[in-house]
């Protein structure tokens, strides 16, 4: 199995730490999100319920993110992709739905270190990242400087995904924003 990182060794330690991590398996589901069949096969595949608007839910080692009014993104261990695909495809067989393996489409980054992680993203993304406003459980699809990206909070930091072709650009702008000498000092809490 190949390395599911685009840049391989990409890490910088500044006010915040930015590093590329192995992309998990990813599956896009486009369907009627209120569908009972979807809820059932999603639970079967991941254990998770259909997330509400702009939410990401986690169940064991799987996450399910709301992406659009008719679209979910599943993040599952790469080893589970085939089984999850099958479960979803079978479960949605009678529905108007699209299930696709998109495991190779994105690069995944971690941005860690409390307040500085929030400030790093707030330099690049037009999102209210204030503590208490952007909290765990929310996913935000937005723009990272000039490219589309999405991020959410988990394990004392942010996980950010962007398309793989712009992984270098994303890392470079994150690295610049995370520089140790560029702290803003705007957010008072983690």
């Amino acid at each position, binding site marked *: 199995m*190949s*390395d*599911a990182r685009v840049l391989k060794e990409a890490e910088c330690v500044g006010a915040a730490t930015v590093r590329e991590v192995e*992309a998990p398996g990813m599956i*896009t589901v*486009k*369907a009627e999100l209120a569908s009972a069949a979807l809820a059932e096969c999603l639970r079967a595949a991941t254990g998770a319920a259909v997330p509400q608007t702009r939410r990401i839910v986690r169940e064991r080692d799987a996450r399910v993110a709301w992406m659009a009014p*008719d679209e979910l993104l599943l993040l599952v261990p790469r080893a589970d992709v085939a089984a999850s695909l099958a479960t979803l495809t079978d479960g949605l067989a009678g529905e*108007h*739905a*699209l299930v*696709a*393996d*998109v*495991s*190779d*489409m*994105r690069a995944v980054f971690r941005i860690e270190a409390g307040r500085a992680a929030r*400030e790093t993203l*707030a*330099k*690049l*993304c*037009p*999102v*209210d*990242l*204030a503590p208490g*406003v952007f909290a765990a459980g929310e996913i935000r699809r937005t723009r990272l*400087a*000039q*490219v589309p990206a999405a991020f959410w909070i988990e394990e004392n930091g942010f996980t950010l995904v962007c*398309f*793989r*072709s*712009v*992984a*270098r*650009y994303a890392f*470079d*702008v994150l690295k*610049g*924003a995370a*520089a140790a*000498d*560029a702290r*803003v000092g*705007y957010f*008072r809490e983690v």
Partner: protein
Amino acid sequence: MKHRLKTGGRFVDRSAPRTFFFNGIKGKGYRGDTLASALMAKGQSVVGRSFKYHRPRGIVAAGAEEPNALVGLGAGAGHEPNQRATTTELYDGLRAESQNHWPSLKTDIGAVNGLLARFLPAGFYYKTFIHPRPFWKHVFEPFIRQTAGLGKAPTAADADRYEHFYAFVDVLVVGGGIAGLEAARAAGAAGARVLLVEQTAQWGGRTPVDIAGGAEAVAALLAELDAMPNVTQRTRMMGAGVYDHGFVLCYEQLTDHRPEAAGPRHRLWKIRAKQVVTATGAIERPLSFAGNDLPGVMLAAAARDYVENFAVAPGRRVVVVTNNDDAYRTALTLRAHGIDVPAVVDARQGGAGPLLEEARAAGIRVQLGAAIHKAKGRTRVDAVEIGAVTGGEVSETLACDAVAMSGGWSPVVHLWSHCGGKLLWSDAHAHFYPDPALPPTGRDGAAFVRAAGTANGVMRAHEAASDGAAQGQAAAAEAGFDAPEIVATPLETPDEAPMRPVWLMPEDADIGLREKMWLDFQNDVKVSDVQLAAREGFESVEHTKRYTTLGMATDQGKLSNINGLAILSQALNEEIPRVGTTTFRPPYTPISMGAIAGEARGETFQPLRCTPMHAWHAAHGAHWEPVGQWRRPYAYMRAGESVAQAVAREVKNTRQALGLLDASTLGKILVKGPDAGRFLDMLYTNSFSKLKVGRCRYGLMCSENGFLSDDGVVARLSDDTWLCHTTTGGADRIHAWMEDWLQCEWWDWQVHTLNVTEQYGQIAVVGPQARVALERLGGIDVSKAALPFMGWVEGTLGGVPVRVYRISFSGELSYEIAVPAHRALELWEALLAVGADLGVMPYGTEALHIMRAEKGFIMIGDETDGTVIPQDLGLDWAISKKKDDYLGKRAQQRPHMRDPERWKLVGLQTVDGTVLPDGAYAVGEGENALGQRRMIGRVTSSYHSPTLARGIAMGLVEHGPERMGEVLEFPGTDGTLYRARIVDPVFYDPEGAKQDV
């Protein structure tokens, strides 16, 4: 530091000396000085030359409104022109150069313009440099460009870093004076998220100096704000612009005052505020008397600032001239610091309120109903002539080395006005102030900007404080917070007598004096210029501004605006509010280009999209071509090769042996659903609902106006699923186009689309040895029988999961292999390995283009330009005749689209084998309506064909397909006449035998 006072100076730290250089000459100052205060302390009275007449100019103000003291700061990669000395904090080693002088500040040849001033009236350039016409470009403009203009543009790339920051607040308070502090406290007490910004390094504005107990009041307010976790205060951060929907730009200067510090120099804050409070204060106006531009003549409050804040004396004998009470504070301050004040010249017959008695008690002579008729001096004021304000002769001449003037105060309404806030005229204060009934409004029609304090026309400190608290409270309430009543800090403010507007001094000044009264110091606009403009028929203030250049300099008329339009209104015999102001536009003061760019520079100027094989290409001699934001190898260079040689080698090798192309950038969009077939039938000119599973077809997409928009191969993956390939540049656009139709027009059709471009690497394996290479990898039967032309199959090749399409854009045996992106490089390298003895070579986009052209295949963007329909290109075969409709069908039936005169695609072959210039026009007999030679066609793509060893081209030609064999003439821009014969566009293997093996 001969003008430095022995004691005082609340901003300067005498224990921290600083050295600076002005025009190369060393000067000394202290931490806390501005460059202006340090220059003044040094006794430097001339700091620059004016724009038009090159008159010597001194420091006028102490803040952002300064028009004269502009300098070039730093050198090389750190050079920045037009920096205001009054807002430049002094640091050790600062290097500043004065501007707009030649050869030197002292001796300026351009000053001769001043002697010719009466020949340089308003609109001089418009009037003078019109005739003879060619002179403008070749004589006048080069000369004017040499002598005009302020600072010099930097020549080196900016060495500093910049960044942006997005913040979201309930209440943004701009301005850290007493009103802003009170507003922030009131909004903070309500629980709102508050950001308070102040453009200078200090809080409190003039309250700590002008008001007894003011310093303590400011300190107490700051302590209260510090204790509120929901309030953030930042200094050196200017509110630059207010825009729709509560968007505000703020400009934070992080290291300008300590350039040795690491980190970004500027940070541009992009703020979304539910409510904005502009507590931006007021700016003092100059008085228009003759010679008011002489160095040493300055604003009265600025003179006070220099004494109180920096312990610098603006002069040894300072005449104060005013039409309002505030300048009396300056007189008292000067006197208290031992500076001689020969007189306070007050235009009002009744003089000031209690401050008048205070001044007299301090032994200051006060001359009422009086005016300065003229300030005299050469490079600095040395005397003023005093007389009655109206009707009277000069009664005496007072020697002095400085004049402190006050023509009244104008609220800083810029931020209020940026987003549409309207203004009212106050007769009492002779100024415009925000109209509370017509504020900037948000999407809900409610006000989102409030002005507070002096910026709101509330001119006295205690009232400004109360107004600040009230506006802060109201803003918090509007933002949805339960705002408690806040009692503002009580401040002792003496009563004041009314001011008296004096627009000319004396009011009956003759033309000789009016020609010496400056309105706009930076652009050299005088009272006489505005009056002339009015006489010449410029009634609109906006026209007068552009004709005279009043207020068009880098200070944007902060000092000159109101004085100028008062003169204009007098000349037009109109009320000032009827004449109105010019438009206030962001930014409030200039902000750096670097701050605007933020991270978008150097390597991150734009995203660079990379395919999974990008690093391999880079390591193997890729000569890059930008395609959208991608970089694709144009050719792979080998040692000693030219680009053309590399391209020729790649074409020949692919046709004779085996080539590999990285086609990963092609767009790939999944389309699935019960209505997907019907949807694609509408989207493409071809019929895709009839395509069999396992098969591919080349398709064309048109806009609803019938023009060819994109092309690509569509594969049917299953009964209800298709995969559409788009051009590299078309992926996002075509996906958006699909969603546009699905969401806006055919919203009840059951179709899902998904852009999976980035999921796959795609490799074209092309050439006579292609099949052998794939067979060596093994895993899929790629024989002609198992995988015929235009078929596809899924499986594994050498253990890598793939989908193989048997398609060809080169005319050779060819497979395109889609592979999960993370494994694309692995497959690429495996193909190179198994193909080594078959002569495998990668090829780039130019070889791709040439092989397409040799086969007569069109390229979107070459053969199409948004005006070309498929029928022009002989693509009628790709237009389904059986369908009722498709996007563009109706448009293609319009008479113009069916016109037999439309130019049509043909091949072009030069008579002598040379290469036709791309884009060249073919000319026919006669002339067109414009008297030019009639054009009958043009070259749409042109190459040297290594296969055929001659130039080949495609072009659109009038009646082209009917004129086979005719020779056309193409005049080149190089003077050469090219001759080419019309031929079939398929130059290579017209039978298609080679790809179908």
